[in-house]
């Protein structure tokens, strides 16, 4: 059996980062990809966040349109609000606010780049660092010694590969997680299904019509919130929900977005043509657990690391990939790759910005499932919000009368809104602000703190 120091199962962004870092640390490294090349099996939104450029500046400055022609940054994000009759009843467009602190986050919200560009580029960095990539190879099992210790992996042809550490970078349906006993299956409330269309859009139309916009979110009342992302010469439209939510074919809901009169008009304007249908699973959970055991670590989607609010997955995959490779290098150098030694991995990701993201993970995930992903809530939330946002721009009555009308209308929503605020918003605020707002006295004491101090 041919052996390496470390085997990484999966050649996505997380696996490639782990392979790159491991190779840079001097480990004999191999990473596997089931496609003919990295990225050809993957679909996602796919916006890259500015934290990648902040945390990995040397690496990210090498991502250019020459290596990734689909790249397109954008500074504006649109939010459409759609009522139960599938009418767009409001729109909010925003750019990074004044409290955003660093570049490039001030200059763009996301850098959009197809996985078919990004993943092979990441893999090339790992190969350049000295890692070996084996493509078109499906790893189907872990090899264990007599005592059950993982000593390598096996591919579908029975070929065996040995190593003292195996990193599972093999996505939502992680074989490494299953065979190592870290996880049998996700609970249905931990995993989402995301169907997505890619549309071809002529480059000049994107620039002319969308300008500096990067994405749009379609907050619907008849479908779970959908995202639209603009690339140099195309766009994605997708939506998702947890596996225990669907009552119809997921495409029914996605097509509902496509068939919004507003979306149809935009498609005509852009001369957008459907080009590809994609579908993938995306772990979206309250808190990652069981991310390591003897000789094994799980990173990225395999470990359940996508952000609990918006399910951004690539950044957490890259961060956890790096931490896992560093822990692996230390463990191999110390000659101890047991669970006890690899606990440093869990400690590492908990301290990282990925871990901080999960501080309010259960609350963030819960509010998302109850609001944008729950049309029954959006059905009253959208008109209530639009009374407040849009009701004043109305010439139907004197403005003072309009204000009274709006307040009356909002009051009508309170029987639904107040329980929602108490059950969803207050627990989230309590966790994020580290204040016990569920105790109403505490909440009433907090409000005066927001007022200007008396001189």
């Amino acid at each position, binding site marked *: 059996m041919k052996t390496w120091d470390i085997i990484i199962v999966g050649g996505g962004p997380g696996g490639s980062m782990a392979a790159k870092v491991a190779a840079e640390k001097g480990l004999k490294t191999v990473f596997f990809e089931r496609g003919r090349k990295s990225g050809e099996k*993957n*679909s996602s939104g796919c916006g890259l966040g500015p934290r990648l450029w902040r945390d990995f500046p040397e690496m990210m400055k090498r991502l250019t349109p020459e290596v990734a022609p689909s790249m397109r940054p954008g500074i504006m994000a649109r939010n459409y609000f759609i009522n139960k009759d599938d009418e767009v009843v409001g729109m909010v467009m925003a750019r990074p606010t004044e409290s955003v602190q660093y570049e490039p986050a001030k200059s763009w919200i996301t850098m959009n780049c197809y996985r078919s560009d990004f993943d092979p580029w990441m893999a090339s960095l790992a190969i350049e660092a000295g890692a070996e990539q084996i493509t078109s190879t*499906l790893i189907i099992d872990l090899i264990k010694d007599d005592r059950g210790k993982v000593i390598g992996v096996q591919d579908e042809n029975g070929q065996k590969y040995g190593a003292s550490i195996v990193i599972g970078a093999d996505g939502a349906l992680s074989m490494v997680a299953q065979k190592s006993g870290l996880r049998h299956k996700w609970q249905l409330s931990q995993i989402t299904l995301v169907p997505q269309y890619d549309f071809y859009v002529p480059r000049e139309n994107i620039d002319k019509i969308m300008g500096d916009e990067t994405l749009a979110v379609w907050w619907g009342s008849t479908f779970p919130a959908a995202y639209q992302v603009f690339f140099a010469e195309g766009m994605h439209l997708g939506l998702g929900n947890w596996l225990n939510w669907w009552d119809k074919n997921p495409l029914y809901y996605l097509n509902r977005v496509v068939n919004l009169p507003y979306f149809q008009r935009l498609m005509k304007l852009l001369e957008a043509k459907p080009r590809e249908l994609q579908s993938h699973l995306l772990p979206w959970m309250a808190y990652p657990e069981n991310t390591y055991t003897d000789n094994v670590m799980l990173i990225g989607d395999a470990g359940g690391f996508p952000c609990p609010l918006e399910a951004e997955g690539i950044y957490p995959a890259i961060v956890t990939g790096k931490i896992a490779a560093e822990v692996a290098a230390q463990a191999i150098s110390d000659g101890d790759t047991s669970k006890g030694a690899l606990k440093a991995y869990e400690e590492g990701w908990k301290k990282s910005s990925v871990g901080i993201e999960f501080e309010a993970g259960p609350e963030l995930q819960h509010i998302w499932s109850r609001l944008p992903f729950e049309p029954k809530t959006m059905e009253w939330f959208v008109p209530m919000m639009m009374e407040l946002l849009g009701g004043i721009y109305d010439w139907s009555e004197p403005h003072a009368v309009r204000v009274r009308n709006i307040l009356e209308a909002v009051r009508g929503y309170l029987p639904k809104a107040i329980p929602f605020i108490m059950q969803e918003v207050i627990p989230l605020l309590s966790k994020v602000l580290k204040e016990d707002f569920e105790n109403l006295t505490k909440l009433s004491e907090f409000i005066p703190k927001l007022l200007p101090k008396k001189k």
Partner: protein
Amino acid sequence: MKIDVKNLMKRIPGTGDFISVDPEKCIGCGRCTVVCVMNLWLLRDGVAQLVEDYQEKCLECAACYSVCEPDAIQFRYPKGGTGIIYEQG
């Protein structure tokens, strides 16, 4: 507007069989028939059954496997280098 999804997929043949169902374990809940974007599952006599040409249609998302609580559905990715290809993923 009806999007004809048939023309929106590219794949490399030669996947071999990669999904199967154990009729003894299937409880006929039908969840696989709901979540499959490509409508590759149907219930026959209360047991989940795959359409014959699933290898030519499957998007390999594994939703059927993941949604199957009684573990009646077995799923393994197709043979390396075969199956669905995303060129704008």
